[in-house]
């Protein structure tokens, strides 16, 4: 069994307000083949919203790597680089 990908979604208040609430639905949108390859976690504020510009919220971390302006689509794209199986149409 390969290691699972760790997807951490910042649910700090700023990220939550600017899109993380929607990102939390990502599990329902993952293609079946990915479902047991990704672990999704809601995490508290990473403090990026104050250090960087709030214009870049919401933030997620994929296997430790931070990504700004996260949307369902950009997260899917990032995951598809790490997962070999082609996702079906989302």
């Amino acid at each position, binding site marked *: 069994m390969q290691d699972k990908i760790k997807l951490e979604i910042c649910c700090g208040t700023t990220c939550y307000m600017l899109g993380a*609430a929607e990102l939390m639905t990502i599990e329902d949108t993952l293609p079946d083949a990915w479902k047991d390859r990704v672990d999704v976690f809601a995490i508290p504020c990473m403090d990026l*919203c104050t250090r960087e510009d709030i214009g870049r919220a919401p933030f997620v971390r994929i296997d430790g790597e931070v990504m700004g302006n996260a949307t369902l689509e950009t997260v899917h794209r990032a995951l598809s680089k790490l997962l070999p199986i082609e996702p079906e149409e989302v």
Partner: protein
Amino acid sequence: MSNGAERLRRELMIRFVREFKNGTLEKNIDRIPFAIRPAQSASSRCCIYHDRAVLKYRLMTMLGFDCGDDGCEERPLSGYLEEAQSSDLRPSQPLTVSAAGCDGCPESRINVTTNCRGCFARPCVFSCPKQAISVEDHHAKVDYSKCIKCGKCLQVCPFNAIIKTKVPCEDACPVGAIRKDGTGHASIDFDKCIYCGKCFAKCPFGAVMERSELYRVMRHIRDGRKVVALVAPSAQFQFPGGIGKLFSAIAAVGFADVIEVALGAELTTENEAKEFVERLRKGEKLMTTSCCTAYVELVRKHAQELQSCVSSTPSPMRYAGMLARDKHPDALTVFIGPCIAKRFEAFQSENIDMAMSFEELGSLLAGWGVDIMSQPEWPMPRPAIATARNFAKSCGVTDAVLTELLGENSDLKLDSKFINGIDAKTALQLKLYAKGKLPGNFLEVMSCPGGCVGGPCSLVR
């Protein structure tokens, strides 16, 4: 995040709160539009100058002003801020339309696109009840003096060649209260408006704006006034971490106490059930709920004939206001919910001093730097009962009343019906209820589909 207009609105609100918290709002307010749309940045509208103008108007509404105010073009935001600070006035209406933001969308009409093949069968011509369509030069043509925009031709065209352009705000309004004025921009007729907030939620240009009391709330907290938050039941589905953490987060901003409006809903339920029994015993045929302000306004302004059927029991917000006044007679009370109509109801409730949306609450917490998820659980003195917390969901009210009623009065038969979402069609349905033409003796009406949880200012729908 459902769209870009919503995102920009929240971003701006968070910045506004941050500047206030840092004590830099006075110094920076005039520069916020420039900070968000600096020279050479990309614009969302035709150009950054237009963007900046709309940002300015939006900031005016965050201070509570009407963005149609005379002379607002020349007057700097700092001037408005000063006025807000010295006058502390409640806005006169909960909504305003920014003419700079409004795109003046073209009139709603039926258009034949280039997909039209001028076919032989011409079902559009045959389906039109007004003979408004003819085919000239192999292309269907609409005679607008005859067209009633019924849309029958849209449905029958085999090439999807006919479309109906809409004016989104007009299309969303269930009572025809938003219309173009002489300049082609939308404007709200407050003699008709029921404050349902559907135009606010639907305008793709974000031109319909709420006149906020966020600034009033923040300045009273800063000035050391005791301010108590009354949080609507739907909050439990709106923020991460549950209401226990949310309440602690609210207290962290400086609110003196946080009270569940669901406690008020318990009283509404109890008294509404009593009222219902009394009315049935008097031989009345129908009672409707009254907790949804948009519905109450709909009856008051558009369906007078139903007035006598509307329950006279105060809404959960009003009861919660009384509870808060009893507990903290010296405090200012703030209702927090997903609703625009409640802002209007709050203007008229002596026990509610200010009203705020969930979106404003979220922005307040974000701008204040309060992370909800890392808060401790709030020590609830007594959690509200589950049926009262369910007030936020459609059928929640009935459910609660029903449970209460079935206790003692087994000889009375409850026949409950729901209207889940007010639109032009349900507005007509209500007239039929008033005439006694539809079955049911208890009618629950919620303006938003799904109940308050689907409100125009909710965060998660």
